[in-house]
């Protein structure tokens, strides 16, 4: 397993101008996009069977759900930024692996459900992260919904539940014999501006929402560079509350638990704000021979 922290502001897809997206841009957010491009090139050199993504924008309150049909083809329109993201997608799903995860997680006491409605629309978080990491869309996905434990209980409960789900998913992957790339799809600090510049890609307007958010984000980046992922997860409830972080959905905790809380340095590919939120692209490569100091 290789793990990627892959934020999903639709702005980065918009800025890339892929043929699937209806909106057209003049660019923008290059620090993130170039970081994504480099990580995507690395993934091309790795032999793996599927991408397994945990997405905050498929929000479920009744357990954790998994996509359960082999293909989904439709259009995803971002409900918040429809002006920049109207993406025509055609994705394949590794249903066997999804079912295995659903089964193992269920056996471990987690409430689960397979999603088999063919009209279901894939969320823009899944699409943005997967497109930026694999623009060719030549790998099947497993998409996992985010159960909103932080809303219903607390960030501490979220941490426990997402950790348990991560361990269950790791067991399912191991039993399947497959090689996967794990994707935790979210920003770090997550306070948005509530206005938008007339030209969304006007980079003269882009900055972090406030300095407190930046300092917290950098604290996490430093810990990641030092390979202290156990510590990152331990302070996750505090970080999440202080920065309204998108880690509230449990993605990073899920991925770190699945990877056994890496004690080796993360590869840092880029950090940049998008409409005020803090976005980091990072990867955890368990193979010492291929692990790099990127930035």
């Amino acid at each position: 397993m290789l793990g990627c922290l892959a934020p999903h502001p639709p702005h980065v897809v918009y800025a890339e101008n892929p043929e699937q997206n209806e909106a057209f841009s003049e660019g923008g957010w290059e620090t993130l996009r170039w970081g994504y491009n480099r990580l995507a090139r690395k993934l091309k050199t790795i032999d793996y069977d599927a991408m397994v993504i945990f997405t905050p924008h498929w929000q479920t309150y009744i357990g954790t759900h998994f996509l359960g049909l082999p293909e989904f083809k439709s259009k995803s329109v971002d409900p918040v930024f429809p002006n920049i993201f109207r993406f025509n997608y055609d994705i394949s799903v590794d249903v066997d692996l999804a079912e295995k995860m659903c089964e193992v997680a269920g056996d471990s006491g987690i409430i689960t459900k397979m999603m088999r409605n063919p009209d279901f629309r894939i969320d823009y978080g899944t699409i943005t992260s997967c497109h930026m990491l694999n623009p060719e869309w030549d790998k099947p996905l497993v998409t996992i919904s985010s159960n909103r434990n932080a809303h219903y209980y607390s960030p501490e409960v979220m941490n426990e539940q997402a950790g348990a789900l991560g361990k269950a998913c790791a067991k399912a992957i191991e039993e399947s014999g497959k090689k996967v790339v794990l994707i935790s799809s979210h920003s770090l600090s997550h306070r948005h501006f509530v206005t938008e510049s007339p030209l969304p890609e006007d980079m003269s307007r882009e900055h972090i929402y406030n300095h407190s958010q930046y300092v917290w984000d950098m604290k996490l980046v430093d810990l990641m560079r030092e390979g202290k992922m156990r510590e990152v997860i331990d302070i996750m409830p505090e970080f999440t509350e202080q920065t309204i972080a998108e880690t509230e959905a449990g993605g990073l905790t899920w991925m770190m638990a699945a990877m056994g809380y890496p004690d080796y340095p993360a590869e840092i590919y880029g950090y940049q704000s998008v409409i005020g939120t803090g976005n980091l692209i990072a990867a955890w490569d368990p193979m010492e021979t291929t692990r790099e100091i990127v930035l």
Partner: protein
Amino acid sequence: MTGPDILFGVYCPPHPQPLLSPDASEGYGKLREAYETCRKRIEESEADLILVYSTTWPSIIGHQIQAHPEPEWVHVDDDFHFLGSMPYKFSIDVEFAEAFRDAAKSRGLQSRTVSYDGFPIDTGSVVALKLLNPDNRIPACIVSSNMYANRAETIVLGKSARDAIQKQGKKAVIVVVSSLSNRMFTEHIDPVEDRIHSAKDDEWNRKILEFFADGRLEDLSQLSREIHGQIRVQKVVAYKPAWWMSATMGQHNNYTGEVLSYEALHGSGGAVVMLTPSSGSVGDKEFDEDDVEHYHGDRGVLDKGAL
């Protein structure tokens, strides 16, 4: 000066069960019947606009207002996808949407219309419009709920809606899509065994319904912060529907209230309520928080200097 012509208001839940599985439990069936009653009342009224405020349409860039003339899609709920799909095609009053946007801007709010093929209309709006206006006899408009907005912004948004209704001379039905208590069970349940998640949620819901039955909408608006703390899962910063509904309908307690149904929806409190303006009132009171006419943005506390 006379106010805008608001015929009545409807408060209804966002969950899809009354639309997709009304026969799964007696309670879901009763909610469906209550929607049917509202539908008939709307049909019998002289309404030429249904204005929907949906708590399941969150926005970030101010408030968004649906302005596609005929939005069409097949919607599936994130949690209840196994209940089936919800194909829809609505008729939207684009001129009103644009007037509402302009009115909101003139009161200092960030606001924009959205008109894109395939825009994901939320579960709550789809359920409400399909049940209340199934044949699109009356043009509708839908406005989002900004996830960061609090009282001032939401009240000013309601007053903006009121401005636009008055300016266009519409006869409007106001629809607020929201649960009462919104904590659902976190496991799958047999619909027959559905019940309100806790006794506390049930008790608060019934107190809110007493206020609705007495027509005390402005009193409910004033209680919003307390309601949020007591029975709302902390997904957003505040319980906003009563603020918006009261501001839109005129900030008073002069209504004939009808609680048509109150049932559990996977543990949450689902009520269908009608509020019709009347001359009677339980009396208006003096409240702690100031009224607000214009939104001036966040207060620049840090720029004001310290003691």
